[in-house]
């Protein structure tokens, strides 16, 4: 293979020139396929994320309602219970008239207590007070208690 003459070297180079493009072409093809393949994977990932972003999530049991016995909350009294994982309270303000709220104080998150004598909620952490409609009477809470819908169904209360 070691052609030393001018002729020999030239011939080798032209031979290589003819093989080079074919080799290059094949390499190019493989590289392009790889490039395209990874591109498709990444594009697929992006598309999947965007689909997840747009498609509404499966309802996390948000429709679940709670049924409570009506006599748990006599007139002027409050009954505390768990509602969808959070502390909640239902109270009977007048015969047959019920209110339900989240029992989480809107100030910094402590659980409010019901003061029967004054018919108001009191938060033991910083003295926030709410009336029987959940509205702020005094103290640091910035917003009223979150209202939870409640309906009467015979001897039961349907909360949520």
């Amino acid at each position, binding site marked *: 293979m070691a052609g030393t003459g001018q002729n020999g070297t030239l011939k080798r180079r032209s031979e290589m020139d003819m093989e080079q493009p074919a080799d290059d072409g094949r390499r190019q093809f493989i590289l392009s396929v790889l*490039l395209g393949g990874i591109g498709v994977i990444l594009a697929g990932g992006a598309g999947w*994320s*965007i689909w*997840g*972003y*747009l*498609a509404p*999530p499966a309802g996390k049991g948000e429709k679940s309602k709670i049924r409570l016995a009506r006599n748990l909350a006599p007139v002027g009294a409050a009954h505390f219970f768990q509602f969808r994982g959070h502390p909640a309270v239902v109270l009977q303000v007048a015969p047959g008239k019920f209110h339900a709220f989240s029992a989480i104080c809107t100030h910094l998150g402590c659980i409010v207590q019901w003061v029967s004598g004054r018919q108001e909620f009191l938060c033991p952490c910083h003295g926030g007070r709410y009336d029987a409609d959940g509205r702020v009477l005094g103290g640091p809470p910035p917003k009223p208690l979150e209202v939870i819908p409640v309906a009467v169904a015979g001897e039961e209360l349907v909360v949520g």
Partner: protein
Amino acid sequence: MNLPKKVIDFIDARIGIRDILQQNLTEYLLPRNVNVWYTLGAVLLALFGIQFITGILLLIYYVPNTDQAFASVQRIMNEVPFGWLIRYVHAVGANIIVLALLLHMLSVLFMGSYKQPRELTWVAGFIILLMSLGMCLTGYLLPWSQLSFWATTVATESSNEIPLVGDAVVRFLRGGAMVGQPTLGRFFALHVMGFPFIFGLIVALHLFCVRRVGISRPPFGPEYEPREPPSTFRHEHHEGGIPFFPNYVVKDVAVICFFLALLFGVVFFAPGLFFPPAAFAPADPFLTPEGIKPEWYFLWAYQVLKIFPSEFLGLAVQGLFVTFLLLLPFIDRGRERRPTRRPLFLTLFLAGLAVFIGLSVWGHYS
């Protein structure tokens, strides 16, 4: 029965699409010594495209009302599947775009590609830069966090120093005496429709000018010689050049991939880089957090205002600098584009860059 071919034949017979594709892809020749800096245009297009898509996605869940804005962004970050990803890509993407814009501008300056006959391209590009910064500024307010509120207050406050009309300008920008719902409303409208629409038109103009005049040839290598630009229109061909498609397109793809790697690297591993703690607290007009600073690309302006004893002087200096850059192709009429043969320009270029970096670093630590 090759369906794709039949469709293209149909379109080609009516609008000659094959001819257009040929002229802009395979027969579009670039100068042989084209360098990697020329990929930044494609990088920016890709990044702006991502901003556009993520922006629309965010629009679906975002509420532009001071009562609900912060909570809606919280919801996107915590409850919407992949919301955190879309939000971070959009926010980090904005910063990467500014970086790419600056690099693109620097390379154009360095290679003197703004000179005649490309003045229009430069002016359009500079306006794109200004509008991008405007989109960054307006977008910053939308999450309605402590950072959003106070950074916007500081940014709009500086207009007060404009003589005579300063106060009116501030009120106009804010829609009132202080940053509030009217500010959010107008910034939202600008960010989502106002800027993008005009921005799109000017990008189209910019790209048109680039193609119409012809891509510039890098002023490097032994064959370069400064030439008198044509007095009548002539498209600059690059005979014997390399085809844009596929030869240079792969380079565009490579650099785009590297920039995206940077973007996602920050998104996944350092998302807090552009999010100080004040970015996660809801806006409180009565409580200024400590150490409010603008984003890194505005630190130079912030520092300039602090250096000059008179804020008006600081603003004037900034205005002069920006105007000088905008009108540069009309000021610098020299034909020479080789950086080593433009000593005055090179000095100003390096000094300007050093001052920009210096002021930004100073602004960060002050």
